[in-house]
């Protein structure tokens, strides 16, 4: 099967740089699968799970939102944070969720920030619980 190069970059380091069969990325309004030869695309990511498949092995990473850019058989995932699914700290995520729910949402911008923090915490919890 034709492969596509996937790079996950955070401001601190490049988490992953590998050739894979296919990738599922969490777009802001639902996930999207990307295979080799995909048309150029820039997408906005929501918090969620990047899943790579390579033959019969699947790897899962949590990403904190960001962007995905597909161009010339290369996928770049730009995100603030990316952690392998096995390293997610559920207790911390639950605490973050409780804290986010207490946040003030006085105007539209604050409300957006609040729902973003809630979504990030929920996505992490969901990833662990669905595994």
């Amino acid at each position, binding site marked *: 099967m034709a492969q596509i190069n996937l790079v996950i970059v955070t401001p601190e380091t490049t988490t992953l740089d590998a050739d894979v069969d296919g990738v599922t990325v969490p777009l*802001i309004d639902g996930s999207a699968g990307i295979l080799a030869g995909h048309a150029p695309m*820039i997408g906005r990511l929501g918090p969620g799970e990047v899943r790579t498949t390579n033959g019969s092995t699947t790897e899962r990473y949590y990403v904190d939102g960001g*962007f995905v850019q597909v161009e010339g058989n290369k996928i770049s995932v730009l995100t*603030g944070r990316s952690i392998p699914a096995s390293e997610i700290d559920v207790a911390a995520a639950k605490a973050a969720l409780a804290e986010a729910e207490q946040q003030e949402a006085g105007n539209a911008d604050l409300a957006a920030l609040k729902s973003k923090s809630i979504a990030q915490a929920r996505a992490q919890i969901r990833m662990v619980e669905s595994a």
Partner: protein
Amino acid sequence: MANARALDKRRKSIRNIKKITRTMELIATARFKKAMDRATSANDYTKRITAVVSDLARAGLEVSHPLLEAPDVTKGATLLVLTGNRGLCGGYNGNAIRLGAKTLELLKSEIETVTLDVSGKRGVSGFKFRDIEMAENYLQFDDEPLFAEVEEIAERYLREYAAGTLNRLDVTYTKFHSVAKQEIVNETLLPLGSIEGADTPVDPEVAAGNTALYEFVPSAESILEEVVPTSFKIKLFKCFLDAAVSEQVARMIAMKSATEAANDMIKDLSRTYNRARQSQITGEIMEVIGGVEALEG
């Protein structure tokens, strides 16, 4: 002439200090390399974000966002000064504190409410000494600032900016150009003014909808909405990284010159010590000869 034994003692203690400064220099060099690697990785991320922005601009999207435009009135401002947690790094901390205090004065003369945030123990004690009040202290940053921690601070500023209590954010830090050149600067991060890549000329073909460079999911506007805060965060993160790299370079250089100064002092002391020792021996010989002559005579 000074006592030879006292001189020897001093020389020994300088030798010990030299050992310490030499080790600190080596440690700073290793830490500098690490910090430098991180700064390079951050550059990779910035480059990709810039590419996304210029693609958006090329598709004919007007890059505008509340964070990019200056507010009508600037009532609240914050100055963030980045210093180190530790000393023994030459003028690094002192320069940052001095420019920070000067900028603060300047901001206060223009803007109604100005708050001061300081990162680093040295800066905190420096401003305390000057009796300048601080709103926030950050002591958690060392030679490897974490993005998650910087992001937290960035989010707070974004929240305040959105709420309207903060209209302007300035950062005073040491910018790293090269090993030989670091410069203490003051940068205005909010409002962002412009983001890199936004001035890419519009491709008429693409703007007219004849060809599409990219498919934007869900829409170019939505991506822009996310790109702008992200570039603010990464800019702030870069400031922290630059400050960390500069601190290590400053320490490296300071410790290097301390080691060299210790070498010079040891050389000087050795000369004086040898001379003192020689004259002591000469004196003793003279005494012996004097004694012999007295016996013969």
